[in-house]
């Protein structure tokens, strides 16, 4: 299932399949990453995110389907595609015995950079990711955050058009993770395309221009967050915080425009046709003797959307669930 996008695609996967022995990793995956945008591949472990990235660069050949990365087939034009890609894998894949500079130089030389061009690129990338102070140290002594920053710096040395980040904040503390996400946003501000894999819904929230939800090697849905919300969560939400009452919540479900009332620790989460029903809700609660602390109209979060998508897929029998995720 893939939305129709008006933007040109930096990456396009059509009906891609890949198995390791008897274990399928990708099953008829359709995926488009619009150029100049951040596409987030969202899914649980084992959903096929890493394999999808590997297929995009030609590091792995699919068993079936078609792959186009930057307009080319990675199997036939792998070298030119990989020259235009910057990859940060789930593990930083750094050479621990070498220094930070050695690691960056290795990558720079493989991409054809030499001399002052290479030195300038290294200095700029290291400075940008805040790792310049540690370049002379052996990478084996780096913290996880420093390794991630070095891997990120390495990925942009050759000014790639397409950046592929596989769980780039894995193992980072929240502050470092946030800093990395800000840097990723900056990448697209400069016109690059970013494809990022994550299973952290909070990370994707606010960062993703385009989301592809994967499960069991196939795409469940894809699109920009706003249109996905409209499609999969057409109703509005109201968070209700109330002080002790003689159980007025049951009365709300009879109100016109109220679709569902879910009790929470603070009060309730109410699904409504639209936010215009809020005054009626407040009035009904007051009449019932409830003391209201706060009423918050809001859009669903990506997490809620994600689980709604998965529920829908399960109901439709499209997603073959292998992992049970509880809210």
């Amino acid at each position, binding site marked *: 299932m893939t939305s129709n996008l008006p933007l040109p695609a930096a990456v396009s996967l059509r009906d891609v399949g890949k198995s390791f022995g008897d274990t399928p990793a990708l099953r008829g995956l359709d995926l488009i990453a619009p150029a100049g945008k951040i596409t987030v591949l969202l899914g649980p472990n084992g959903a096929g995110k890493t394999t999808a990235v590997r297929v995009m660069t030609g590091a792995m050949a699919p068993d079936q389907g078609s792959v186009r990365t930057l307009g080319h087939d990675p199997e036939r034009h792998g070298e030119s595609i990989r020259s235009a890609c910057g990859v940060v894998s789930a593990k930083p894949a750094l050479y621990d015995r070498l220094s930070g500079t050695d690691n960056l130089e290795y*990558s720079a030389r493989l991409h054809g950079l030499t001399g002052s061009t290479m030195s300038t690129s290294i200095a700029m990338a290291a400075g940008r990711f805040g790792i310049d102070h540690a370049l002379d140290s052996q990478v084996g002594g780096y913290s996880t955050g420093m390794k991630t920053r070095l891997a990120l710096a390495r990925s942009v040395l050759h000014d790639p058009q397409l950046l592929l980040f596989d769980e780039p904040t894995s193992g980072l503390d929240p502050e470092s993770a946030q800093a990395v996400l800000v840097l990723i946003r900056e990448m697209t501000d400069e016109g690059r395309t970013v494809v990022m894999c994550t299973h952290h819904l909070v990370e994707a929230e606010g960062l993703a221009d385009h989301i592809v939800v994967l499960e069991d090697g196939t795409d469940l849905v894809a699109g920009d967050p706003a249109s996905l919300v409209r499609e999969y969560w057409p109703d509005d939400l109201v968070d209700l915080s109330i002080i002790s009452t003689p159980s007025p919540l049951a009365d709300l479900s009879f109100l016109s425009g109220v679709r569902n009332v879910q009790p929470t620790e603070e009060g309730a989460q109410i699904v409504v046709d639209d936010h215009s029903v809020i005054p009626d809700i407040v009035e009904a609660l007051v009449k019932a003797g409830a003391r209201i602390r706060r009423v918050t109209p809001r859009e669903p979060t990506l997490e809620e959307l994600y689980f709604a998508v998965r529920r829908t897929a399960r109901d439709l029998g499209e997603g073959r669930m292998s992992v049970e995720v509880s809210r």
Partner: protein
Amino acid sequence: MNWQRTFTIARTDLRQLVLARDFWLPMTILGSIFFVIVPTFLLLGISSLGDVGAVQQISETLSLLPERAQEQIRGDTPQGRTSYALAVYLFAPMAVVVPLTISTAVGAATLVGERERGTGEFLAHSPASTREIYLGKLLASLAPGYVTTMVGFGAYSLIVNLIVGPEVGGWFFPTAQWWLLMLWVLPGFLLVGLSLVLRMSGKVRSTAAAQQASGLITLPLIAIAYAQASGALYGSANTTIMIGAATWVIGLYSTARGMGSVKRQRLLGVADGV
């Protein structure tokens, strides 16, 4: 084929070896023992013992060597002839095997090691072709073994010339046969061995398995060492040149085949269930 990338891969691997004390320290010690310490003590011992029974007996066993080899042995005294024979036929072949074995151990770890450390992912996503990766790794495995062998052999030559030379009429080592072996036959053998070792390194599941398998591939090297020790290889220069040429042909063919054996998927560690 981008040779700059090939050399970059080779240079980076060599740099890691240089920084790996756990690699070069045992190699230096082992090389020193076989190239310097053992020959020095034994040759000095024989020279200082003089015309004693043990030396006489060894001297008599030289008659077991092929006639052509016997003709090459220099020296007028039993200890001179014994020292010459030991220097040319026994110590040198034994010493050559040690760094070559280490070199194959380096080669065995090179591709599977990338996969085990997770750095194979970096190479798999890099623009370097699988040929460039293979040749870079081959050079990085070939260089330390061959350079160590040549350096050690240089030291060994100096030692035997200084100790045995005065007894056999001056500097004599390396002999013409040894020059051919070191510069022509040995690199060819090394190429054959390492090209096979790298192919295995790209396919097996662990460094330990690759090193076990590489032990088998050092057998031809051990065979040539024994052949030299027994004097069997002490034929005409033409024979040696032919043997060298054959090893080069086999080595280049094996290298060409090996280039196709590296798969990006294997660097990632997911091919064939690996």
